[in-house]
């Protein structure tokens, strides 16, 4: 197993799938000549050519809309949006068309397409370019929403997303492209809709996804010194949401903390907590704690920004609180 960065894992997944299937192509702002805003597609243009690595105008509705058309016509597009904040400009295409076409045309069309986009804050990009609106997209049936927390899952899930015939919103996190991790050698995929226990423990279940997975790992190391063993369940995809490992873990620990980078209200934590109360009420030994972003438009000021975003220390505190 090689140790590579999240960026390399995603890049490898795209490269391997484009080599494997010539129907796979990528398009987006600066994916070609510039090599991707976060350098994920560096070298792709030279290798695959401009037909399959397509620089587009700054027009998100067109990027997603044309990808939908290509997918209906039999191609397997991977559309990149520079940040998830720009997905709002393509909202109608994403939630009203991509998510619904297979259903509304009575199954006549499949949409084998992926929309790749990074979200999250922490890079001083200010309130409009730093959001984590994952829960909004996960609200819509018909759209798969994937958000990996480790390089191995990023590679395996992206390859799976490209191969399946449903539209997938693949959410990356702008601040963890440099995060390293072990990735299996050779060709592999990870099924979408399966949560995974990333670290075993017996005292508290910590449910996380995306950036909150490495954060929870750091929290686990701190808590381990106090004799507290947390079990980290990585959701990996928000829709479909696989609660089985979460519920199984909760039945063991009876206490849970849910960590997400987005806002608390109507968030992923709300959904997961509600499901735990529904499916494991008789196992609840303490009110479930949610760790999330403060309910403000994210400040530009670097210190205020960090104060508003959930930190490793917040997870540590929440675990201690839930154990009171």
């Amino acid at each position: 197993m090689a140790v590579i960065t999240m960026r390399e894992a995603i890049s490898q997944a795209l490269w391997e799938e484009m080599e494997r299937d010539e129907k796979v192509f990528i398009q987006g702002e600066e994916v070609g000549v510039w090599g991707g805003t976060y350098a994920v597609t560096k070298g792709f243009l030279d290798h695959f050519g401009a037909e399959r690595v397509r620089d587009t105008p700054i027009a998100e509705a067109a990027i997603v809309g044309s990808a939908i058309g290509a997918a209906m016509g039999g191609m397997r597009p991977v559309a990149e949006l520079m940040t998830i904040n720009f997905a709002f400009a393509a909202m109608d295409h994403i939630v009203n068309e991509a998510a619904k076409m297979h259903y509304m045309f009575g199954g006549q069309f499949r949409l084998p397409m992926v929309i790749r986009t990074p979200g999250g804050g922490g890079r001083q990009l200010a309130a409009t370019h730093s959001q984590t609106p994952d829960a909004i997209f996960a609200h819509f049936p018909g759209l798969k929403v994937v958000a990996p927390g480790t390089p191995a899952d990023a590679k395996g899930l992206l390859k799976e997303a490209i191969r399946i015939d449903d539209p997938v919103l693949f959410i990356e996190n702008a601040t963890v492209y440099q995060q390293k991790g072990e990735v299996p050698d050779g060709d592999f995929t990870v099924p979408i809709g399966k949560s995974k226990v990333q670290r075993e423990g017996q005292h508290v279940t910590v449910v996380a996804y995306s950036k909150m997975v490495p954060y929870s790992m750091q929290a686990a190391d701190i808590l381990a010194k106090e004799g507290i063993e947390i079990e980290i369940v990585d959701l990996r995809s928000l829709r479909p949401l696989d609660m089985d490992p979460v519920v199984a873990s909760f039945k063991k620990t009876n206490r849970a903390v849910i960590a997400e980078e987005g806002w608390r209200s109507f968030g992923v934590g709300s959904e997961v907590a509600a499901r735990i109360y529904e499916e494991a009420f008789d196992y609840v030994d303490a009110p479930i704690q949610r760790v999330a972003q403060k309910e403000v438009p994210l400040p530009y000021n670097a210190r205020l920004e960090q104060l508003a975003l959930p930190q490793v220390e917040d997870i540590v505190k929440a675990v201690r609180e839930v154990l009171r």
Partner: protein
Amino acid sequence: MANIVEMPKLGFDMAEGTLAKWVKSENEPIEKGEILAEIETDKATVEVESSYAGIVLKHLVDEGTAMPVGTPIAVVADEGEEVDLDAIVKEANAESEPPAEEEKAETSPEPAAKEVVENQSDSEFIKASPLAKRIAEDKGLNLSTIKGTGPGGRIVKRDVEKAAQSQSRSAISTTPKAQITPGVDEEIKISNLRKAIGSRLTESRQSVPHFYITSMYDVGEMLKTRKQLNEGLPKDERVSVNDFIIRAVALALRDFPNLNASLSGETLIRHGDINVGVAVAVDNGLLTVVVKNADQKPLTQISQEANAMINRVKAGKVKNEDIEGSTFTISNLGMFNVEDFVAIINPPEAAILAIGSAKEIPVVVNGKLDIGWRMRATISADHRITDGAEAAEFMQHLELFMEQPWRLFA
């Protein structure tokens, strides 16, 4: 035609019963076989079925009142029937018991011990986690007696588990666990069940010449067999160590008629059935549920029957046949980390077997030090019926079934 329902005799030694609850109200229609009331005897709360169909015309006894067996407790009549209540009750009383009973009912109502406890706790909301509530219910613990250490005094899992532990340590308590209020003595009326346990076991301990023999069994194979057996079974059908012991004891008893016996005056009765009683801890004491003909039943059936009875005991819904007719009793405290202990014979039986915990200990096997699973068991036997040599032979014979569990499946 109007019919009188009497206080039923629910056990051979039942003298009186307390009307715990009317299930059918006055003027409510009732079918034959429907539950009319719940009666608390000195052993358990039992549901009483109506032998008649019609309308429950009149309750003759208030809830919480103790009445001798045979006393009229209700009148069931046809719908619209005109009934002279006074006359019919008087007639019934004259037939059954001395006439003074009616008076007694009015003057000495005896509230059930259970109610007293409930009244103490129902007055205020108890803050407890759903998990703590569920565990408390499973273990039969009263939440109002447990101190919460969670935020705001919430009772959480650790509190209930601690309470369960301290309850099991003090073995059988006279009343549900209560917190001690410094400087204040509390007076609690002893329940019917506790009174019954007290009188029976005092009699046994004082009149039966007990002797005791302890043996140690290698239960490694039994534990292994149980694990393998349970791997294929759904959770609620899993077989316990206790089920293995019930079957082992039953098979061993086949060759020891003197230990499957009881003394009646100067006559020894060697029983034709091997009915193994199992002591079960309940809120106010203990009850013995009985696996009938345990030597003739497969392990899984023993397990299912024992489980069903234990669940009924814990829910306070025990049937009379669950607790009657045992010919030999097992008392197992293995779940409480016990080395060994001695039990008092359950009269009129000849012996009782007390089971300690299975423990991994250093053992010598073929001259070498090894680690093995061992369990101690102590038989208490009645010297009027049997002697040390016979009881020791039984304990040795039992070894076959404890240590070679495949014999239980033969």
